[in-house]
């Protein structure tokens, strides 16, 4: 048997390793406790902040409640303005159609009837002056149709004749708008 063998050396190594593990776990434990305490404190601070915000909101709610009528009116005004815009931009341009068609009627002529909607309109004109009606057919209608802004798709002459009651020439057009 060798006398130089140290039987206590392994035991000491194990003790050292266990001591290190002990210190490490203590450090981890302390860090966990510190973090959890920090988080709890932070959460309490947040709760306090939320409570103060809640009370501020209550205060604002009571101020808004006092002006509820004014607020409702303002919201209604804004909502209705957008509806009014929608109506104005979408409504049939009947007055524009009337103006467009009235502009080509010769001064010596009379509009007997103007009927239709914003797409199809029928106009009947009566006149004693055949020359003015001829000018209307040959010149004015062509000018009107060529003006793209007027939005005319088609113009057709539906009838032409002499009215036996008034002894005037009567001409009828059908105008189709885009």
């Amino acid at each position, binding site marked *: 048997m060798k006398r130089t063998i140290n039987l206590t050396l392994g035991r000491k190594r194990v003790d050292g390793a266990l001591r290190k593990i002990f210190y490490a776990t203590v450090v981890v434990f302390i860090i966990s406790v510190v973090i959890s305490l920090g988080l709890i404190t932070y959460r309490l601070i947040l709760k306090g902040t939320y409570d103060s915000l809640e009370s501020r909101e209550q205060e604002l709610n009571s101020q808004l409640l006092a002006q509820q009528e004014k607020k409702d009116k303002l*919201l209604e005004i804004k909502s209705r303005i957008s509806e009014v815009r929608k109506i104005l931009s979408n409504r*049939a341009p009947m007055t524009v159609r009337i103006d467009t068609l009235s502009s080509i009627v010769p001064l010596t002529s*009379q509009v007997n009837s103007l009927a239709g*909607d914003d797409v199809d309109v029928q106009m009947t004109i009566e006149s004693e002056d055949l020359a003015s009606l001829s000018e209307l057919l040959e010149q004015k209608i062509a000018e009107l149709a060529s003006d793209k802004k007027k939005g005319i798709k088609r113009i057709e002459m539906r009838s032409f004749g002499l009215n036996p009651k008034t002894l005037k020439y009567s001409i009828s057009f059908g105008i189709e708008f885009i």
Partner: protein
Amino acid sequence: MKELQLIYRKRKQQLLPLIFGFASVFILFRIVLPQWTDIQNALQLITTKNSTIQAKEASVLLLNSLPEEGVASDFDLITTALPLQKDIILIFEELNNAASETDVDLGGFSVKVGGIYSAASGQQKKEKAVTGVPYLSILVSVSGENVNVRLFAKKLYQSMPLVEIESLDVGRNDARYEVKFYYKPVSIRPEKADTVALEPLTNSENDMLKTLRSWQSSPVLQ
């Protein structure tokens, strides 16, 4: 008990790290992680609350800056342009005013108020305009000089409540117009509307009100 103390003394070096380790894990899962989740939720709630408060503060500030009379006047104007309901009296006044200003005689008008009973929803659909705003269809007859009966249509387009002429039949000395009178019941706003700050009227909205105000008392444009 003595046995336990004996075991503790004997195994102290192994037991203590185990106890601290388990305690750390316990703290991590039972305190740190739940607190972390709660803090995240609380932060989110605070952010939402803050934005709500900012919106409400802005709304209060705006409402305080607006004069009561101004808002009431604009509200009256806009509800005249687009009434809250089918207001027959308002329509009658409008037609009478337009007729007297354009020097035509109002022959009469028939109002389609609405169905008394309808099993299907077809009737309701029929009353909805293309724009989504309900309206009341009225057939108006006027008589007078040809120029004036045409002017009557123009006057209708520059007056309130807002109208749309659907079809016309203008004769030499009379005319019949099929007119839509628009109206709109009060809209129901969602609860969430409180979290959005009120905005003042924009320039274009003020311009629109100005235009409508000018129609209230202006003579018809020739």
